[in-house]
């Protein structure tokens, strides 16, 4: 029972941290938050095969049961994909930082600000 409680609170804490960080305004915490969310979902997927101790991942006669191997395969795929995605968004936010000089996720089109360079070519109406 304690194992289930630990897993559930762990996933909950990871998700909460991830959500909080995603809602921040700078791209660095957003990236970290996405990473936390992907950790949370990986553990969650793993737990979906139910927690079992000392069981083989295949059906056999020597053990009195088995643990479902499929969620682990799913987690593996999910880890690979989220790893690639995280690498991409890190590069992307770095490029955006280098091109604009600010580590800010807003699009910079608020009316009280000078619009971005491309918008300046708008003809006056």
């Amino acid at each position, binding site marked *: 029972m304690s194992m289930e409680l630990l897993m559930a609170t762990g996933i909950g804490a990871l998700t909460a941290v991830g959500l909080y960080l*995603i809602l921040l305004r700078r*791209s660095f915490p*957003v990236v970290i938050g*996405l990473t936390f*969310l*992907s950790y*949370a*979902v990986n553990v*969650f*997927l793993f737990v*979906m*095969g*139910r927690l079992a101790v000392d069981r083989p991942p295949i059906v056999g006669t020597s053990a009195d049961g088995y643990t479902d191997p*499929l*969620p682990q395969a*799913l987690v593996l*795929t*999910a880890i690979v*994909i*989220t790893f*690639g*995605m*995280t690498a*991409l*968004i890190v590069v*992307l*936010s770095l*490029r*955006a930082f280098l*091109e*604009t000089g600010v580590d800010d*996720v*807003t*699009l*910079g089109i608020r009316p009280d600000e000078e619009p*971005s*360079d*491309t*918008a300046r*070519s*708008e*003809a006056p*109406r």
Partner: protein
Amino acid sequence: MTSQWLIVPVAIPAMTAALLVLAMRHSLSGQRIVSVAATALQLVTAIGLYVLAGDGEPHAYLLGNWPAPFGIVLVLDRLAATMLLLAGLLAFAVVLAAIGAWDRRGRHFHALFQFQMLGINGAFLTGDLFNLFVFFEVLLIASYGLMLHGGGARRLKAGFHYVAINLIGSTVFLFAVGLVYATTGTLNMADLAVKVPQVAAGDHALLAVGALLLLTVFAIKSAMVPLHWWLPPTYGSTSPPAAALFAIMTKVGAYSIIRVYTLIFGAEAGALAGIAAPWILPAGIVTLLFGTIGVLAGRNLLDLICYSVIASMGTLLVAVGLTSTAGLAAALYYAVQSTLTSAGLFLLAGILLEGTGGRGSPARLPPPASLYAGLYFLLAIAMVGMPPLAGFIGKFLILDAGRAASQIASVWPAILVTSLLLIVGFTRTGIRLFWNGPGADATPALRVAPLLPTVVVIGIVVAVAGLSVLAGPAMNDMTATAEQLLAPQRYIAAVLRPRLASAPPGE
């Protein structure tokens, strides 16, 4: 043997993309030839598969010949065939339009394009929920590349939003898949359709959470309000051919909604039957209203087109939310025409706004201005749903399907009022662009209009017109598709008991 053809729409772009990246990365003209040829092949295959699916029997292809609930299956039914054909047509138009100026702005445009087609075709064909996730990721990764193609600060900022929201969407998808697997023990869609009614009562709440989380993911993909905020900056700041290709991506979301909530959580899902139905219709109406407000508030042509895409998704979701044969058939017809129309509008905007960074009004219009004004007029008519083009027929069919007493009070005012407001929005932008804006002869400096994109836009207008003329035969097919969707027994039988399952491979 016919079922082997199901892998072809996935295999062609996969191999082409690899070839383009590895063998031809220094030769742009070689890339163009191979990419156009591969896209044409996909279109031909899609037509062939459409004919194959026309016999009304779903076809299954077992990857690696693993029997159905254990291996991954590709399934071709009428819906998948229709969407494949639409994707093939759109891809062919976009790849032709991209040749010339747009694919030269950065490297690997054609490879990314083919990877995107791999994801799109795969998402339409797969019969497995986790495999759907994987194909979503494939098409998203490629779309990140296409979206950022050419670079620029604004595009990078918008791209960051786009990638972040889709990463969150992917995470939610995984949570949903985990919940579905935990309660049913399978992720094969046909097997799920069998298992969902048998889920123990204690697990109903968990499975319902999974089902509605899936709806959230598909709502992000299909830009359903309030999850639509990513669309205007993304489509508005990317290059025109990429935006035109992305017109099908919102339909991937709509396709997934139709597939999952007719097959898995359809009428026969026991306690969870029709779990998404109370959400889709109201969400569709709100999406339609928000899209229309966006069109009225849009400050330039691209804003207008982006928000009209959201409005058309709203119309489409309203039709899906009617959950009737007529509603689904109308939804499919409307999906085909709105995809083509919005792609045409994005390409036209690309021609008109060349040199303005995609924002604001063009300094001068390319001659002949009357041709482009005419194309804008025709596409606008199709988009807002005025006769005689297919948008009107689509909306008319949706209104006709929504005549039931419980729906008429919400569906009819929503569609009719927003159509009027859309006309106002498109008219205002047209006036500003073509009458108040600088004419073609206002400045002596000549702007040569790119020939190929213009031809493609004309071709799209012709295709939309053809869809209007052939509305009768098209609607017959769409109605057959909707009937097949609402009676999923044959789909399930085709997947779980395929005739070729026991045949040994090779000799």
